[in-house]
């Protein structure tokens, strides 16, 4: 059996329609759930903030909108080189800072793709989380490439 008749006999139209609807509704529900996830987490975390234990955040105001760092024309790809370019920004903010502060400053100074860079810093442990959204700077050393795993 071939053609539209075969589709109808094997219940093809219903399977295709129901299948498409199920996969769509499943991903719509999942999409909605994860879109609310960070909001739910924010509400939950606000309830648990102990004001007396807030970490000390530098009160240094980031410099005004004008960029003050001159970037090389060819932005480096090596994470250590990029970290060296970010160092003046970190020195301006202080020892501990919110990620958003560093993000804003890098944007003001026209650093390309700050979000991706900050994610890479976190994965390379150049940005260390001190908890509650506060981070500190752990500059890479020349020996980082030569570290051996022990034990």
């Amino acid at each position: 059996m071939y053609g539209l008749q075969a589709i109808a006999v094997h219940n093809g139209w219903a399977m295709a329609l129901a299948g498409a609807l199920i996969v769509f509704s499943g991903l719509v529900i999942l999409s909605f759930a994860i879109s609310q996830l960070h909001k739910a987490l924010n509400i939950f975390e606000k309830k648990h903030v102990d004001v007396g234990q807030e970490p000390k955040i530098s009160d240094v105001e980031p410099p005004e909108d004008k960029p003050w760092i001159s970037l090389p024309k060819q932005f480096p790809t090596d994470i250590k080189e990029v970290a060296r370019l970010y160092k003046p920004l970190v020195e301006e903010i202080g020892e501990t800072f919110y990620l958003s502060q560093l993000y804003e400053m890098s944007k003001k100074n026209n650093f390309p793709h700050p979000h991706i860079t900050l994610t890479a810093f976190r994965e390379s442990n150049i940005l260390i989380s001190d908890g509650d959204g506060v981070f500190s700077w752990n500059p890479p050393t020349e020996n980082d490439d030569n570290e051996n795993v022990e034990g």
Partner: protein
Amino acid sequence: MDLLFQFLSNTGYYLADYRNVIMIAVGSLFLYLGSAKSYEPLLLIPIGFGILVGNVPFFKGFGLGIYESNSVLHYLYFGVVTGLYPSIVFLGLGAMTDFSSLLARPVLMLLGAAAQMGIFFTLLGALALGFLPKEAGSIAIIGGADGPTSIFLTAKLAPHLIGPIAIAAYSYMALIPVIQPPIMRLLTSRKERLIRMPELREVSKKERVIFPAVGVLLCCFLAPASIPLLGTFFFGNFLKECGVAERLAQTARTAIIDTATIFLGLTVGASTQGDVFLTGKSVLIFFLGAVAFSIATASGVIFAKIMNLFLKEKINPLLGAAGVSAVPGSAREVHLVGQSEDPENYLLMHAMACNSSGVIGSAICAGILWSFLVGL
């Protein structure tokens, strides 16, 4: 002299027929594309070599071939026909996948759903061409552009088609740079291709840890038949994100997935013995696979354009093409097509969001088709 003649009559040179020669040529082509052209080498090299191994002619009854019980290849093939290897591959994929971009822009998940329409259109096409419902479902899943998912569903519904369907699925995944860009360009204007996507927000670790647990519950409650794929996929992702089981995550995304991929590729390749593989059905499957993959790409792009009618902040419709689950090939292709118009346009992270939702979507589709068709 008789002994020598008997030996010669049992050699592959004597037993070979034209079908073995054709398949050996196909296997050699896969090896060439994988090793010399670097087209999906991790897939094409094991499959290509498997095709060579599977098409060495042999004397039936010695327990040598993949379809003969007690042969070594037959035991290795067990992981394919039971759906074991795809499930293990999904564990490794989960341990590799970073859902940050998807969590930052959940609306892109809809493109992963839209690209699955290729599966359902192909289901209708395969039925219309005379395939039985279980065969049609197995062929349709090629539209998900996910090799392990295709093999998994085919193993459950139409095990006799594993060879052609797996080869078709992996071939089209390797041919993404050839198939997808013309469709993307055909369906979008230059102005649309130039649309830049905003920087993604920072995603907290808590979100990344909670997501696999929420994902597995929501998806598997909806389509329980997708548990073998999505269960391991989200488990692998949880290992990666929880931060305290890095050793397990590392093993899952390296040694475990590599081992499964080697045996999966080799045995799927070896299952393409000329006399079993070279049939009219295989040709039709390849044709339908191309249709499925093209419709999937087009559905994603068209759906992105439809979304733009309602969204204030427009999305680049090229991203729709990454809704198929060929990770990361289709995301890379979207990025390259975007950059060919505007070298400063970085679509990769957004495309990865669509890509990872495509993996989830195609696994759900496999579960849906399995539950629809298993009783027929």
